[in-house]
């Protein structure tokens, strides 16, 4: 019985903590792997400014010159709007550097944590950043 209670405790606590860094829509751990951090630099090729999450796509070139397209998930439009973003904050062709975590299924998708506009070094998420001034 003691072991069972402990098992429940450990399971509950461990997974609750793992579930914490989650978008409001789904548990982070259902989709992304905190053990697979990625740092990507590339050009924005597509933006889906929609619910439940904004997705943007970037072409990333590796050292051999091969280009891979990555999809990165952000928060909901409403949340970013309230952080000062507009649907034009990130534009097609923008050069960005993204810190995030890769999808558990190993595909070229990830959850973006920090997005930095390459030319200015401006972080689109940090602190009270209100996004790009128009």
């Amino acid at each position, binding site marked *: 019985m003691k072991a069972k209670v402990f098992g429940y405790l450990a399971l509950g606590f461990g997974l609750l903590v793992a*579930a914490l860094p989650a978008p409001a*829509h*789904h548990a982070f751990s*259902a989709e992304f792997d905190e053990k697979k951090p990625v740092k990507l630099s590339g050009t924005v090729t597509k933006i889906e400014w929609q*619910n439940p999450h904004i997705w943007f796509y970037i072409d990333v070139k590796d050292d051999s010159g091969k280009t891979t397209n990555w999809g990165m998930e952000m928060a909901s439009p409403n949340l970013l709007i309230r952080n000062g973003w507009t649907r034009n904050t990130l534009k097609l062709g923008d050069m960005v550097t993204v810190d995030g975590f890769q999808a558990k299924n190993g595909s070229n998708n990830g959850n*973006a944590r920090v997005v930095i506009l390459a030319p200015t070094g401006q972080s689109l*998420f940090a602190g009270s950043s209100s996004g790009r001034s128009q």
Partner: protein
Amino acid sequence: MRSTIQAVVVVVIMFAGQASAQWAKHADKSMPRTPDGKPNLSAPAPKGSDGKVDLSGVWLPDADPDGSPQGVEHMVFPKHFVSITADMKPPDVPIQPWARDLLNQRLQNNGKDDPAAHCKPTGTPAVVSVPVPHKIVQTPQLILILYEEGTVFRQIFLDDRQTVQDPEPRWMGYSKGRWEGDTLVVDTTGFNDQSWLDRAGHPHTEALHVIERYRRRDFGHIDIEVTIDDPKAYTKPITYTQKTTLVPEEDLLEYFCSENEKDVQLFK
């Protein structure tokens, strides 16, 4: 102390960028203000024409004071949104064995079957703690709560209607309200068994009875005491308090999850 400040900062950040919101900034002339013109959230709670405390406004569930900002959203989740038993030690949780097994299964499964992740509604009472704004519209006989989460509504009837026997089971249930002094007491029954009580996945049955007690302790704060009574899933009622804070001069935006849902295909 530090984490408390962090939590406050996060909420401020969340709503800092009003200039680009969908609705143009609109000054609320009825808002009590401090001498420097800022909304005075500690002013007395307002009263309606019927003399009852007026709960109307746009409200945001408070973040967990012990939490830390997470993810691109810099969000700190309300702890009862994560788990209704956040205040209890695991051995003290009065959960029936079948419900504990189902909870553990949902946790092990990383919440992949969470109805919200599949764009189904966040039901009552989880919707009370979901960290996006809701709007209360109060009239003497009917109180509406509009939730940005899922763009759903609840109707709380204060007239003398009776709940039908054997109601069609619903996600948000059927709510009746009454005043006990300055506290609005809301009884809700008639639930389906599909919603999760929190993000962890605490289950419930159709026997669920939720009692909410709304107390606007000052202009800027409503404390909502939530009691979950479902003897088929829990051996004793579970009670916790979700504090909420007024978001001055903010309004709701629509949120339709099915617009571009593409997470489920990546679940593993």
